[in-house]
């Protein structure tokens, strides 16, 4: 005799819901609480190293979105390119990481940023010095295991959601 058909299934469901009521909620309250970001995260901002960049524009060629714009000038004395302008339109960036993988001189890294929403399209464009690495914009370990190894061990879970109280 299957009692699920005699109202027991309903009671089972109700016991499930009441047990959920006394569990910790699984949501987090975004602006105050943030989930941990993976140390190999592909964020929405590129970290660019001016020293290592040779201006070969491999990144610009691989970018499926054409989001990277690079203008170089020839330096005949040192026999090399000089980067005049390095510009990334993060509005077009799909965070595929191909540019980072393609860079032959390890001059490009992904960042951790995911808050690139802006009011105007022009503000989405980052160029030159904005792209440099800084304490606020650390380089992610994506495609760079050496960087990832140095970052501390982490869990992507938050142990306990606590309610934000005024």
């Amino acid at each position, binding site marked *: 005799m299957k009692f699920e*058909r*005699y*109202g027991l*299934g*309903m009671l089972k*469901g*109700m016991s*499930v*819901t*009441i047990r*959920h*009521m006394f*569990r910790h*909620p*699984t*949501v987090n*309250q975004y602006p105050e609480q943030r989930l941990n970001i993976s140390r190999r995260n592909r964020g929405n901002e590129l970290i660019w190293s001016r020293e290592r960049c040779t201006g070969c524009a491999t990144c610009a060629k691989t970018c499926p979105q054409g989001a990277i714009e690079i203008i170089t000038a020839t330096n005949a004395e040192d026999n090399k390119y000089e980067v005049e302008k390095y510009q990334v339109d993060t509005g077009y960036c799909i965070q595929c990481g191909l540019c980072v993988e393609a860079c032959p001189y390890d001059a490009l890294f992904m960042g951790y940023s995911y808050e690139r929403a802006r009011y105007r399209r022009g503000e989405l464009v980052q160029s030159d010095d904005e792209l440099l690495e800084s304490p606020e914009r650390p380089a992610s370990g994506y495609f760079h295991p050496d960087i990832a190894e140095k970052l501390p061990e982490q869990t992507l879970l938050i142990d306990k*959601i606590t*309610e*934000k*109280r*005024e």
Partner: protein
Amino acid sequence: MTVPELVISNVSMAYTPPDWPGGYWWHWLFFSVVLIGFMLTMVIIAIYIERRGLGRMQSRLGPNRTGPFGVLQMVADVIKVLLKENIVPDKADKLVHWLAPIVAFVPVALIFAVIPFQNGALLADLNIGILFIVAVSSLTTLGVFMAGWGSSNKYSLLGAMRNVAAVVSYEIPLALSIVGTLLVAGTMSLNGIVIAQDIPFILVQPLGFLIFFIAGCAEINRSPFDLMEADSEIVAGFHTEYSGMKFALFYLVEYAEAIAISAIITSLFLGGWRGPLLPPWLWFIVKTLIVFFVMVWTRVTLPRVRIDQLMALAWKFLLPLALINLFITAIQVLAWDNAVNWIAVVVNIVVMVVLILIWSKFFKLGWGRLEV
């Protein structure tokens, strides 16, 4: 064989001397103000319990920004909805559209007139109190149907039609399950019924309670019977075209109805204001909120039924069970001097279990598929 003694229902006379005009009018004024205040406060508490309880049961938090623990969220919502523009559709039946929220609201307010907060503390101790409730409570449907019709919106009309169908069907088991308690209590006054509950009627009339709870939920269109405002299929049903204060009134009606049904269940089955230690009115409020919480609990647990399941449940399941329950109760009342005894409790619980098992076996939808 003796018929149980009628419980004296006009105990309230000590509190409310009906001397015209002084005492009567003071009584009227006092309880009108108290009832309106009670209703609005309880609605706010109910919405808070519903949203928080719903959130927690779904592993969410629920509103928690406005005030400590989000208690002021409802106040903010009220202010928001008051300030909103009142939009009336072009092709709407303007008068009906305008009148519908009021027609829906008044009967709900009327229900509270006969609900006792403590011994004799009620606006009108009608000796036919529960009959009055049954008569008045279904009038809300008229308002809902007016809203559905007046909106000139097919979804609204669909929702309203569903509501009418549901209420007409569920009115019958609802009334029949009440009659069982009336037989046991021997009075129709709600205060009298509360006084008669030396053992809470939920134990004496378990099947009646179950039927009343289910039918009550269906009557006020709470989940899982909220077909009339099924958001996912007919976009909020009858109040799709309502905005601003008129929408607020419908919202108020929805929760005031839930509170009213909770209060009726409290009075009929849970011993109303009776209880140890706490003051009676507090017992009443606490019990009402507990019943409301169970409604929230069922809402969060059970998925919405289909319209044919809704009808089948009313006509094939609740109605026969209510009739059998009434029959058994009548025999018990005739057989025993006092039907409120512990033997009756045991007998009725056994009867309930057996009947539910048998009827679940019978209950079929469509072509013999068993879907309960």
